[in-house]
Each structure stands twice: as C-alpha cells, then as structure tokens.
C-alpha cells in the first residue's frame, strides 16, 4: 500500500474562503473545516456516504447542476457555493419530498426533540407539502427484540444498515423492496440472533428505530445528560447517563467528542435497567431484618473484632471502582488484620496478568485499543470479543473495513467475529497453547519473524529456536482439529502483516491452560512484532469494566497495590496506614473456600460479587456459604446470596456513585454520580470507609482524589493524579508500556492436551454481563433464562429437540436447562452462558477452568 496519494492535499474555495484538505476528502469535510454548516440528513461521518437525501446540495462553478456535498470528492481548484436562493429552494423541496409519506406523529414519536427531520423542517420553515404520492404505509414492526421499527417515519438514510455492516459487525438490518416502497427489514427474522445492534437506534436520525425499553418513558428534552462511562466491557466507553427525577432512563453517547465515537455497547443500549430494578436492596439488614446503618456497621465491626483477622476473608469485584477496591484491601489489611482477600479475577485475568508481567513486563494491554484499528492483521484468540469487549470489536471492524486488515479468528465456537474472519481456526479445547506455539513456529520458519525486535528486546533469543524445535506443526494441527493449510495461512497472514494486533479473552484467561496459553501468546506477540510500533499490540480483553483497576490495587493475598510483593512491601504500607504491622500469610479464593469448608474461616465479606452463580464450582461455594458462621453481603440487588447473609449492606449502583475505572489499555475514566442511591444505599466507598473508621478509630477520606493520591504515593502506578478532560473526565494517568532492551522472555512451548468427548464451555453471552444484567428487563428480553447450546449433530445423536429440558453432568456437579440447537457450536461442544442463577452452569465447571467434559441427557 502506498501512502503517497493519501497525503497529497487539494485546495478549494467554499463561499469565498480558501481551504486545504487531503485529497480524496469530500466537499462537506472541507466545509466543516471552515466551520460552514451544510445541512444533511443521510450523512453520518463515521460510515460511508449514502447520498440519498440530496439535502446537502451545493453549487460548483462550471458544473451545470448542483452536486451533493456529502459524497462529492473535492478536486483541486473548485469553487463551491453552499447557499443561493435557488439552492435553498431546491433543498426545501427535498425536505418536502421526505415528508410525502412521513406521518405527522411527532407527539407520539420518541425522536421528537432530537429528530433531524424536525430540526431541518424548522430551520427551513417547511410548513407545507404540496406533493402527492401513493400512500405506502408499511405497518410498524413490533416483533423484533428490543427495537421497534416504524417504516413510515424512515427516511432511508441507511445509517442503521451501515452502522452494523461497517462499524460493529453485529447488525443484520437491510433495505427491503425498492423505490418508495423500500423499508428497513432484517436479514433473517426467523432465527434468534443472540447479537443485537443497539447502535441502530442511536444513529437513526428520525424516530424509525425506537428502543423498546425506553419507548414513551420520557421526552428527550426533559432528560439531563450526565457525562460518565459505561458499566460493561474493559474498555473506556464514554457515555451520557440520561436521567430525570432521580431515575436513569437511558444511556447515549456522542459522536466525535467521545473516544468511542458515539458507539455503544449492548449493555449501554439496553442493559442498564438493573439500576431501577424493584429488586434493589434499599436498607441494611442484620439477620434479614432491616436496621439502621449504624447498627449494621457496628455488627460487622464487633464480629470482626471478636473473631480476629485469621478467621476473616473477603472477595471483591471488578465492578467496584479503583478507590473502592483500594479501600477494600486497606480495610482488610489494616482494619480487619486479614490478608485473606481475593476476587473473581483469580479464576481469570489475574493469572494472565501475572504471566504477561513475568515474560513481558506488561500489565494490561501493550497499547491503546485504537492501535488495533491501525493494524494490518488482527488475531482474535479465544474471545467472543463482540460480547466481551464491544469497543475492541469496533476497533477490529474498523481495521478490517477501513484499512483492509486481515482478520484471523481462533475460537472453540463459531462466535460472531468468526463469521467475518479471513481465516477461522475452530480448535478443540486444550489445544490453544499449542496452536499459538505452532503459529509462532510457522512465522519463524517462514522467515517472517520480527528479528530486529527479538534481537533488541528478548533476553533469551537463543531459546527461541530450541523451544520451537520441539513443536510439531502437523501434530498440533491434528490435535487441535484444524487443517495444517489453514494454520499455515494464518501464520503467513500474521507474518506478512507489517503490524499485528493480538486480542485474547475469556476463553484463554479462564481456561485450564491459561498460564501456558498466555505465555504462548506472548511468544507470538514478540515474534510477530506486535509489541513495538504505533499500530497493533497485545490486548487482553475482559467483560468487567474495572478489571485492570482491580488488579492494579492488589486485591489478592500475594501483592499489595501497584503489584508490590506482599511480604516485602508490607512494612511500608503498615507505616503509611498507621498500623503496627500488616497481617502475615493470606489465602486466595480457592484457599478461602477450603478454609470455610474446614471451618477456619468464619467470617466472609462479599463485596459486589456472587460466588453462587459466577464462580466455578458454584455448588461447592453454596454449601460453604451456608456453613460460614458470619456472612456479610454488600451488593446492589437481592438474590439467593443476600438471603444467606447475616448482614446485608445495600450498595449504590454504578450510576449512583463516582470513582475511577481503569480500562484494559490503562486509561482511566471517571464515573459520575448521576442520581442518588436507591433507598438508603451507600456507595461501596462510604461503607468501607466507615468500617475502616470503626476498626481503626481514625477517619478515612471519601474524596476520590485524596484516595488516588494516597495510592499514587505508595506505588508507581500513576504518572499523574488529577481530574482532566473537558466533558468526559479522567482522574489519573498511567505509564504507557514500552519494553526495555533485553527484558522480555521467550517461554517454552506447551504441548496440546486436547480433550476428548463432549465438552461444555461456560462463558459470557452478548446480552448479559455478570449477574447484574439478569435484573435488566432489556437484557432479559433477549435471554430470559439460561440455555445450553448444542450442535445439530449432537442433538440428533442424543435425541434432543430444540427447547427440550436437558441435564449436563460433570465430575463436579450437574445442572439442567433448556437445549438450544444452534450453528454457533461445533459438534462435540456445548455452550452455556454463566449469568443465570436458574441454570447455574458454574456448578458443573471445576475451579480454574471454563471447559469441562460432560454427559448430556434428556430431562
């Protein structure tokens, strides 16, 4: 690809003003540069132009008829006039034409107040509509999930179609019929599509695409917009919380000014309803009876003092902010005198993060996620990225569609992104590390390794050859169930690309082979040169918004905030926190479970986490939690878990508090408090601070900045602490990643240990995030309950019909739910979403794994 022509500039004149733009840009881009506004209806900067509405007509000197500014490429020396009486007249007629079949139902249309057609009619003083045409009233479509379509309002701008095809890869909208009969339909409305495009509603300039959960609930102009960040997916998603009368009505975003360019995740589009759920915890409870806050806190403090640190353990969550998690570990270590603290990350990202740090000195992603869009090849390894981290998916789509990048997908299932890939390696569970090793070997063999990078940064270059020599590509391919040719094709694509982005997700971090696979991917990243340069990189993806922040502040027994070794750093922290010493030892989640079973842990504190549903071997956790003497549950929603609790502390939901989330690419975003907490709920930060005061008798600041400064003073996590940004704020800046010379380690390659027999995978599905979204009406419309996805072949073999009740049984437990026959899983694989308390698939899954051998039976 040559970049020469891209950088060439052209000069033109618009309304008497000279302007210079890049060659290939359109007239409208030039006008925008000058601050001249040309009216548009079908133009959306982030997608390709449609040129359908002809509202953007302009005159070009020497051209007989007016041209459309949105899709006419500016050529050197042209003289453009954007407004003449004749142009205005023609524009007005274009608007009138749009009104021919447009019902005047603004009073009942949700778009009123933010409708481009309304605005343009007002601006152009369009009061009449002299044209007549056949009335082609297509009835409104109400049977799509979550979105209602009113064809009579549609102006056929195709933005909803294009946002799906060009930006998200999710939507299946398309134009049906032609001419004045055309309307927007869906590709195949028979099959349930687990991936739903919420951005269609956001981009529709009129009220043709309507969000069902929001429908009729509030007029757009009555909503206050509070700039904040999204609650799902480990990348920063800058959004506006639309609130009124202390209620969250919807979440929107803005084009251009946000880093996500207005693109929303499914969760922001439809999954926010849990905030307003009737299941919210409204008052503290002791022994299931409502009490005052002071009493609840006193009970916790008294019990903690009575039992002593060794008998206390706590688990936190990646939904809590950085400040909250910092206070959580401070409360445990300084307050409770216990180092038995951990989080859900134990079963996933924590292990990966440790490996990346060990071999690459890397924490989180090696670069900002926008570098994915600039990469020449993108490898998505073990991740349903579309659902895990939608913002990364959007970057990948951008890379493929705008930069023609090669998309290579390695997954056990036919996830959405696999459909769009150039090459798809559908592997057998247990072969992921070996597959990554084989790819590494092939790249080196093809002579396409990034030798200069390896020479400079890798300390054991000599080992590369040695460990790769042990890899037998044919054997790996056979074990993994993929063809050697395809494997080679992927290797060539990676090798030929000048920049590579490697994205991996839950199927790696939660798997039994997490350590080996992460190391193998690190090898692959080094060899393919992904770690240097300003395009591509290595990106660990996670569904939780503050996974990186959780890891950063050391909510685990082995390290203190900033990844400082616990034993080595405890004296420093003890001094800073004003306590004599920090407790010794410490148990992780697995050990805590065993200790509860053994009766040595008597007091368990759960902050925003639900082991009964989300942890592997959830059945074992349930038995343990029933047994534990004193259970404190701090959460936003009532559940089976809160029913087991001795003390329930109602926490503020994410829209009800402020604090920092750190994304996978080490960016910080500041959550803004948009509404007051439900009932008497308090933010997790307030609760921890009060308990800390109760334990230590010293006051704890609640100011985010003060807490971050304390954290910054004790660690080298941040280069800067302080609120910055115009509308969407950030609270601190982290050091970027740059590998040091001879600092990276090439690890030994692992062999494949392919599983045999029917395997069940538990994981995230597109519509849900954690357990929280199972309280959101929007998400429940797509998936009201858990299901077990099964291939046609396996279903036939077992005689299972679609929708039939089935049971799966593994060595650690069994679960039952409805079967869903689908093309998304290959033969030999079952998939079940982990979010649902009803299905509770995690009972079947052993600790430290996401796949397990199962038997399936009817009933």
């Amino acid at each position, binding site marked *: 690809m040559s970049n020469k022509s891209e950088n060439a500039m052209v000069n033109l004149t618009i309304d008497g003003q000279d302007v210079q733009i890049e060659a290939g840009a359109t007239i409208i881009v030039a006008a925008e540069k000058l601050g001249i506004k040309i009216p548009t209806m079908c133009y959306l900067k982030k997608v390709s132009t449609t040129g359908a509405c002809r509202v953007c007509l302009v005159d070009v000197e020497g051209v007989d008829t007016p041209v459309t500014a949105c899709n006419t490429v500016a050529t050197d020396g042209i003289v453009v006039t954007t407004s003449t009486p004749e142009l205005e007249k023609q524009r007005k007629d274009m608007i009138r034409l749009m009104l021919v079949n447009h019902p005047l139902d*603004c*009073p*009942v249309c949700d778009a*009123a107040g933010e409708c481009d057609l309304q605005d343009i009619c007002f601006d152009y003083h369009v009061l009449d509509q002299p044209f007549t045409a056949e009335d082609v009233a297509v009835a*409104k479509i109400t049977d799509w999930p979550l979105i209602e379509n009113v064809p009579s309002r549609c102006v056929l701008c195709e933005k909803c179609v294009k946002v799906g095809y060009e930006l998200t890869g999710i939507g299946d909208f398309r134009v049906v019929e032609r001419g004045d009969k055309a309307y927007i339909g869906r590709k195949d409305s028979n099959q349930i599509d687990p991936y739903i495009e919420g951005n269609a509603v956001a981009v529709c300039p009129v009220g043709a695409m309507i969000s069902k959960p929001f429908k009729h*609930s509030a*007029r757009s102009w009555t909503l206050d917009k509070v700039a904040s960040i999204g609650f799902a997916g480990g990348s920063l998603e800058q959004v506006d919380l639309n609130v009124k009368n202390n209620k969250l009505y919807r979440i929107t975003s803005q084009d251009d000014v946000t880093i996500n360019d207005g693109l929303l995740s499914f969760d922001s589009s439809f999954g926010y309803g849990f905030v307003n759920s009737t299941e919210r915890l409204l008052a503290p409870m002791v022994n299931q009876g409502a009490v005052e806050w002071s009493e609840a806190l006193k009970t916790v403090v008294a019990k903690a003092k009575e039992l002593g640190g060794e008998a206390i353990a706590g688990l936190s969550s990646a939904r809590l902010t950085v400040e909250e998690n910092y206070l959580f570990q401070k409360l445990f270590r300084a307050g409770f005198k216990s180092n038995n603290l951990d989080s859900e990350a134990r079963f996933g990202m924590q292990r990966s993060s440790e490996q990346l740090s060990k071999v690459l000195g890397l924490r989180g992603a090696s670069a900002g996620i926008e570098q994915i869009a600039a990469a020449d090849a993108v490898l998505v390894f073990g991740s349903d990225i579309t659902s895990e981290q939608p913002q990364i998916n959007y970057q990948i789509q951008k890379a493929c569609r705008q930069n023609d990048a090669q998309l290579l997908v390695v997954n056990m299932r036919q996830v959405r992104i696999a459909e769009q890939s150039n090459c798809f390696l559908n592997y057998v569970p247990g072969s992921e590390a070996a597959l990554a090793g084989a790819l590494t070997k092939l790249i080196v063999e093809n002579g396409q390794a990034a030798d200069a990078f390896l020479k400079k940064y890798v300390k054991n270059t000599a080992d590369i050859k040695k460990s790769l020599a042990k890899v037998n590509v044919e054997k790996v391919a056979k074990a993994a169930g993929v063809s050697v040719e395809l494997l080679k094709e992927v290797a060539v694509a990676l090798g030929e690309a000048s920049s590579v982005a490697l994205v991996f997700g839950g199927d790696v971090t939660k798997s039994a082979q997490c350590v080996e696979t992460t190391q193998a991917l690190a090898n692959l990243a080094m060899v393919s040169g992904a770690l240097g340069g300003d395009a591509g990189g290595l990106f660990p993806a996670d569904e939780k918004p503050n996974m990186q922040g959780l890891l950063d502040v050391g909510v685990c027994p082995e390290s203190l905030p900033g990844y400082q070794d616990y034993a080595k750093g405890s004296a420093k922290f003890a001094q800073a926190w004003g306590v004599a010493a920090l407790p010794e030892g410490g148990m992780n989640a697995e050990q805590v479970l065993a200790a509860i079973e053994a009766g040595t842990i008597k007091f368990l504190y759960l902050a925003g986490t639900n082991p009964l549903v989300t942890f592997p071997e959830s059945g074992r956790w349930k038995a343990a939690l029933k047994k534990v003497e004193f259970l404190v549950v701090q959460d936003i929603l009532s559940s089976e878990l809160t029913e087991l609790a001795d003390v329930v502390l109602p926490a503020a939901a994410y829209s009800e508090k402020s604090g920092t989330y750190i994304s996978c690419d080490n960016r910080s975003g500041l959550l803004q408090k948009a509404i007051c907490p439900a009932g008497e709920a308090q933010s997790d930060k307030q609760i921890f601070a009060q308990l800390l005061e109760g334990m230590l008798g010293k006051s704890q600041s609640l100011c985010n900045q003060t807490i971050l400064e304390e954290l910054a003073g004790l660690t080298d996590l941040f280069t800067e602490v302080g609120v910055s940004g115009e509308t969407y704020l950030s609270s601190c800046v982290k050091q970027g990643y740059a590998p040091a010379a001879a600092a990276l380690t090439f690890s030994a390659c692992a062999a494949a240990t392919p599983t045999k027999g029917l395997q069940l995978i538990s994981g995230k599905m597109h519509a849900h995030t954690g357990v929280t979204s199972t309280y959101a009406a929007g998400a429940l419309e797509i998936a009201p309950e858990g299901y077990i996805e099964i291939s046609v072949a396996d279903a036939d073999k077992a005689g299972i019909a679609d929708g039939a009740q089935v049971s799966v049984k593994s060595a650690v437990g069994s679960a039952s739910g409805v079967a869903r026959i689908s093309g998304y899983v290959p033969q030999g694989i079952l998939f079940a979403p982990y979010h649902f308390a009803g299905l509770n698939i995690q009972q079947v899954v052993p600790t430290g794994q996401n796949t397990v051998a199962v038997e399936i039976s009817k009933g």
Partner: protein
Amino acid sequence: MIKEFIQGLSITAKHLLPGHTTTVEYPKQKLEIAERFRGLHRLVPDHDREKCVACGLCPTVCPAKCITVEAGEDENGVKYPKVYQIDMLRCIFCGYCVEACPVEAIEMTGEYELASYKREDFCFTKERLLK
C-alpha cells in the same frame, strides 16, 4: 366647596338605594362568565378514551410545572396518558397548556369553584379531568 361635597355625597347615597348596588351576591348570584374565561381544565374525550396522546408538550410549556404526564401504550400500540394530573394549587390558569396541545386534547372550562377542604383534592387526575 360645600356644593361639590353635596354633589359627591348624593352619588354615594344614590348607590345606597335598593337596586343600585354593584355587589354581586355570590354564591346566591353568579355572573355570566366570558366565553374565553380560563377555569378548570377538561381533557377532551374521543370515543372511549381521552384525545390526549401524552406528547408531553403541556408539562413542558407549563410555567407552574403543575402537569404530570406519564405515557403508556395500549393494546393496539397507541400511545396514551397512563397518568395525567394537574395540581390546581399551583396552576396559574395561564392557558399555555391549551395553546401548546397539538391535538386539542385539553381545554379550559368556565368552572371556577375549586375550593376544597383537603390538599389532595386539588390534584385533578385524568378521570376527574375527563368529566
């Protein structure tokens, strides 16, 4: 000066004579109100329901912010006001709501006898406004 004084007093005296008073003996006697008088609101019915489509324009324009509209959708997919309520204690009878309504669903009647014993009774619900 005395002359003017007597003249003035005689006018006063004349008004004291029966049949010359300007006082309207309300409530025994009531004035006929003007056609455009702005009294209690009425929601205009339309077949079996109210004409109002819950567009929210009247609460938007109301300077006293005393109108509450909550929209719903009936079984035919038609938008209607699930809740429509006016707090007469706050209403200033400006009539802006009537002017704003795009479907002429709200009007103001000649009814001005709105006194009540209880505060709650000043809250006019949809049912009362439809009467």
